């Protein structure tokens, strides 16, 4: 912190007054500047009402500097100097504020806070500011900017913005923007004093899902005029029905995305446990290895975050797959036919892998960055917007499933896997190298777990305990779906995900999970072999 010494202060005043002199001189050249200057002075008023008027006047001047002024004001960066009442934009620096002159964009150096007075804003002014900025952006040539500007105006319209919208509507050609503007104008009409206008607005808005429409209709349903009240009530009923519907769609979408996570985590297990009958308790740790692979690859290519995720998918498959093959060759191979011992040995491996990761990467969580194409959301209507990361995870899950399904059903490896799992000795008699098929199958299941890890790294923290959190869920999904059945795993994952999300609103996240677990325990009693049990000879073992 440095404070101004008197000598410096005098210098500053001199400098500021000079610059003011200079700027007003230069500004005199531009025409139509009087209302702009006046409005700028009005902005320094103490009354918020006056400031509001000033903003409207500024907006009306259509001067190209207005937008940056209003934006600065919104961010509380607009000041005026105490000595000369010069309006400036100030950005906080270590030793005061770096100032820019409003009128000529000149850099005025750094000035202490004590020489400045901030032009304060309250919430109402902020609303006016946003609407005014939006009105200004309406004249932008970029369609996207215009659309955003219109969307910004919901709930913040005033007479000035409505007039601006009406004028703009006449020249606007984009249909989407037109319909947004019309909706806005009709929402405004709801407040009109004319009964016919109000009624037609209600009729127009009876399918509109904006919260502002709903709020206004809630007020109108108690209107003294019976016709308006009745119309609002029926419109409201229609809107509420639609909102309820979209709410359910939204929950289903959340459920599908949770289900995709479950399917991704479980699908590798469906191969190792379902097809081979190996209970791999280290499955969660193979997922964790995939997530850490993503982290390492991002560290290797920090400038290509978007690309790193694409590279991470095959990398994670190779890392987890090779670790899986190693586990199979060294341990599991000796334990075939002894499922409970396999369970214990693989659990030991899971502990070793966890501790290894803890020793190499530290026990703390590592953060994996999300590329830009995964953030943001797809807005379908005002009541329903789907976030891209959830959308992509559903698609990714379906892609992985399809790929795996094709490998098992259409390739010669898949055929061997099926043959060995159905009748080992017969398959060997036909010339299939059973132990090699075992290793490859286990590697495939483990590699898929690694791919699941890449997806999970985008959703949760990447830490040594990542795998443990998913291992029980994965087993539940496979057992519920029916062991040895890929379709069963897919359907059971989605079912459990959706059921979980639909129970969450009234039961809470933890209780919903407990109920799902209890449900599975009871379900296993009724159908010990899951939703889609294996039929035929393989079912006997």
């Amino acid at each position, binding site marked *: 912190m440095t404070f101004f010494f008197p000598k410096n202060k005098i210098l500053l005043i001199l400098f500021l007054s000079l610059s003011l002199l200079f700027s007003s001189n230069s500004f005199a050249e531009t025409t139509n500047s009087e209302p702009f200057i006046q409005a700028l002075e009005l902005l320094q008023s103490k009354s918020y009402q006056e400031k509001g008027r000033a903003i409207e006047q500024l907006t009306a001047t259509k001067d190209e500097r207005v937008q940056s002024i209003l934006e600065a004001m919104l961010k509380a960066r607009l000041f005026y100097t105490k000595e000369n009442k010069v309006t400036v934009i100030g950005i906080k620096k270590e030793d005061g504020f770096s100032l820019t002159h409003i009128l000529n964009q000149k850099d005025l150096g750094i000035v202490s806070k004590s020489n400045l007075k901030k032009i304060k804003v309250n919430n109402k002014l902020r609303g006016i500011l946003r609407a005014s900025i939006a009105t200004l952006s309406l004249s932008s040539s970029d369609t996207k900017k215009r659309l955003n500007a219109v969307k910004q105006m919901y709930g913040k319209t005033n007479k000035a913005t409505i007039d601006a919208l009406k004028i703009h509507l006449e020249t606007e050609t984009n249909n989407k923007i037109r319909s947004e503007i019309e909706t806005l104008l009709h929402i405004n009409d709801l407040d009109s004093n004319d009964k016919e206008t109000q009624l037609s607005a209600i009729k127009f808005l009876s399918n509109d899902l904006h919260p502002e429409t709903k709020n206004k209709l809630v007020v109108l349903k108690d209107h003294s005029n019976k016709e308006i009240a009745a119309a609002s009530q029926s419109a409201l009923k229609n809107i509420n029905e639609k909102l309820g519907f979209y709410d359910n769609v939204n929950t289903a979408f959340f459920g599908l995305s949770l289900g995709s996570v479950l399917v991704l985590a479980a699908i590798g297990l469906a191969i190792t446990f379902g097809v081979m009958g190996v*209970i791999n*308790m280290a499955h969660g740790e193979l997922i964790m290895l995939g997530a850490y692979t993503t982290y390492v690859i991002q560290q290797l290519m920090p400038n290509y975050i978007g690309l790193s995720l694409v590279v991470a998918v095959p990398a994670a498959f190779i890392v987890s797959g090779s670790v899986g093959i190693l586990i199979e060759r060294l*341990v599991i191979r*000796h*334990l075939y036919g002894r*499922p*409970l*011992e*396999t*369970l*214990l*040995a693989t*659990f*030991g*491996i*899971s*502990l*070793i892998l*966890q*501790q*290894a990761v*803890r*020793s190499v990467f530290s026990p703390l969580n590592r953060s994996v960055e999300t590329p830009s194409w995964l953030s943001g959301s797809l807005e379908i209507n005002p009541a329903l917007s789907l976030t891209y990361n959830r959308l992509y995870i559903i698609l990714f899950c379906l892609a992985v499933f399809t790929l795996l399904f094709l490998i098992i059903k259409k390739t010669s490896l898949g055929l061997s896997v099926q043959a060995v799992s159905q009748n080992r000795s017969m398959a060997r008699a036909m010339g299939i190298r059973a132990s090699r098929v075992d290793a490859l199958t286990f590697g495939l299941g483990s590699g898929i777990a690694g791919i699941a890890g890449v997806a999970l790294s985008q959703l949760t923290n990447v830490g040594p305990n990542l795998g*443990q959190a998913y291992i*029980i869920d994965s*087993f*539940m999904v496979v*057992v519920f779906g029916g062991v040895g059945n890929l379709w069963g795993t897919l359907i059971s994952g989605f079912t459990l995900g959706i059921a979980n999300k639909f129970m969450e609103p009234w039961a809470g996240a*933890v*209780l919903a*999970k*407990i109920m799902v*677990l*209890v449900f*599975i*325990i*009871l379900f*296993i*009693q*009724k159908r*010990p072999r899951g939703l889609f049990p294996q039929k035929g000879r393989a079912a006997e073992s």
Partner: protein
Amino acid sequence: MMRLLKGDRGGQIFLALLTIAAILIPFLNLATPESSPFHVSTFTVTLLGKYLAFALLALSVDLVWGYLGILSLGHGAFFALGGYAMGMYLMLQIGDRGVYGNPDLPDFMVFLNWKEIPWFWHGFDNFWFAMIMVVLVPGLLAFVFGALAFRSRVTGVYLSIITQALTYALLLAFFRNEMGFGGNNGLTDFKDILGFSLQSDNTRISLFIASAIALALGYLSCRAIVVSRLGRVAVAIRDAEDRVRFIGYRVDRVKLAIFTFSAVLAGVAGALYVPQVGIINPGEFSPLRSIELVVWVAIGGRTTLYGAVLGAFIVNYSKTYLTGVAPETWLFALGALFVFVTLYLPNGIVGLLKRKQA
């Protein structure tokens, strides 16, 4: 008793050692000065008491896994439920000595702004009621769970996985504050038991002796089951379930009886464990804990009963030692032990010793 131990040399040695320990260790603690090389500190006595509780738990696992072929990955749940029943009794003994000084409510309930004690806490201020619950709650859960599972013939891996789901569901439930069991922190800060301070040496030695007696009785009762007709049928079920069923035995009833008894033993072990370590929290429900105790049995050698006890002592002693000396290596060691034992010592340490003898 002699009849039970006939032909069970390992059991004879184990019970002899246990008797000697139960007499000698309190004597060494009380009668020798602290400077003496023979002195056993109270800390060690409590540690050994904890191992005894674990040994009883391992015994209960061996009974169902070794003799019935049920690999329960949820026995930690029965242990924890017994522990919670004991913990609730101890909690109500604190009275107004808690942080908030409320004579009726335990601290965590005051913290949650509860006005009165929930209905399921009623009666736990009575020691004997609590002891009945120690037996009843795990027993009842095992009975209901077993009745459902065994009647619908859920076996093998499926059974293992739903026992794991059971303990996982309980873990999640006990983490919730609304459940009324202290949430995340569990029950702790105990002051005294039956009027005796838990901090005093005498109480700790008494708890040690109580654990030793419980373990001895637990061993003998398991032995009694194993040598009885019921035990023979159990072994037959383990080896060929369908055949036993076709001969005409009610497989589900045999399983249910032994499973429930085993859960009761686990509950008693939990009740002995809690006053000695001074805390019970939902962590005891974690699936990891339950799998760990299966490993005690596997390492000691299953289907021998005393092997389970041996395994519990060896693993827990190494855990205490290693987490003290090099905490990083503990999980490596435990993991390697899992793999090594399942690959090379299918009958555990006891199996190794027997092979050497032969």
